[in-house]
């Protein structure tokens, strides 16, 4: 009833692409989250006009389409002779892109912690750093998590754009198979299913944490 030329080898080829997608997502989200934490704390703690240069730069990364950022960054690094591989370039650009969104998530979550709660913490003798790590971050995490999960899933899908730099991630791998086997519907269905399998555990993990925390609220 249904015939396909897709072989086990081809599936392994797709799995390898999925591995690249996961790797890029991992580096981008890790780097982007660390930068987002730093920038978000800065944005939340210093006066808006002092953070203006930072805000401006991050706005650029949020506003310019990712594809343009990737291609420009790759071209610039080639012209400048940095000799950075497309994979690393992609990770850097995606990390900056992620950090721009993450900064706003972190800032919003920190500002959601009531000032009076922070005052209570400081009045007990906690230092600014202790207030941050013991009170603000745990409380802000609960606010930030749903948006952060959404951001991570978004970055994973957006990472498909790095195929334009010649990286064989999941989508590019599927394109290769489609060209060879001429079974676009079937292969895209499988590719979509793989994306879903990558995203699903992340989404569920978020849901579980939220439920666990809700028990205390």
């Amino acid at each position: 009833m249904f015939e396909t030329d897709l072989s086990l080898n081809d599936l392994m080829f797709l799995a390898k692409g999925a591995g690249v997608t996961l790797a890029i997502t991992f580096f981008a989200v890790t780097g982007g989250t660390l930068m987002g934490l730093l920038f978000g704390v800065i944005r939340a703690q210093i006066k808006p006009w002092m953070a203006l240069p930072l805000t401006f730069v991050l706005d650029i990364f949020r506003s310019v389409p990712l594809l343009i950022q990737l291609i420009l960054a790759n071209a610039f690094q080639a012209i400048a002779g940095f000799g950075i591989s497309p994979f690393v370039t992609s990770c850097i650009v995606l990390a900056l892109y992620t950090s721009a969104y993450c900064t706003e998530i972190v800032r919003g979550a920190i500002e959601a912690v009531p000032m009076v709660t922070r005052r209570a913490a400081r009045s007990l003798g906690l230092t600014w750093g202790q207030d941050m790590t013991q009170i603000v971050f745990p409380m802000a995490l609960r606010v930030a998590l749903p948006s952060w999960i959404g951001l991570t899933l978004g970055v994973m899908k957006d990472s498909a754009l790095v195929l334009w730099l010649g990286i064989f991630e999941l989508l590019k791998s599927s394109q290769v198979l489609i060209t060879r086997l001429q079974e676009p519907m079937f292969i895209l269905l499988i590719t979509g299913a793989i994306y879903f399998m990558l995203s699903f555990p992340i989404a569920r993990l978020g849901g579980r944490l939220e439920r666990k925390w809700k028990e205390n609220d």
Partner: protein
Amino acid sequence: MIEIENVHKSFGALKVLKGIDLTVAKGEVVSVIGGSGSGKSTLLTCINGLEPIDSGRILVDGTEVHAKSTDLNKLRRKIGIVFQQFNAFPHLTVLENVTLAPRKVKGMSKSDAEEIAVKHLNHVGLGDKLKVYPSRLSGGQQQRMAIARALAMSPDYMLFDEVTSALDPQLVGEVLDTLKLLADEGMTMICVTHEMGFARDVSNRVAFFDQGVMAEIGPPEQIFGDAKNEATRKFLSSVR
């Protein structure tokens, strides 16, 4: 001893404190009464350095609170403050709320901190709520937890900022009882309050604040029985 000398403080153009002088001796309980916006609460947050002041000075045991050289985190260990809002740390259990500062600020071991915390939680009647999260507590219980949390740092002074104002009427009593208990034990306290009965029964002295000025201060009998200041009399007749 807390010495407040000619303290001025404004928020932008709004002058909140206009030259406050007040000395509170060890073991003394001073209640501060007055209308809203009279600067009572601001004074408390200035005493432990949460708010800067414009001029004047505040000394706690001879240490100038707003001097640049003062280690505020260290100074705050001996000044406990409880606010109108309960300010529980929602992600921590009752026990963890109370042990946090002794462990992080004083570097106590977990077991030592818990021993002290349990003692104070028993004291305020929350000995059976150790593992409970604050969201499961009533307002009065949360406020008593906040008191235990401040006491766990073994402060020499306690500042109370309208601690019963956000409570349902039937819960006010349990918190006031806790404050009375503390006063009986000789804790030095400054209580900003709207509870006139409490101010009269528990304080050694009552201060009346009016628009950023301490209009009058004296023993409760005098303030409530024979106020010299016209504004004091007016205020007291309006709250009775």
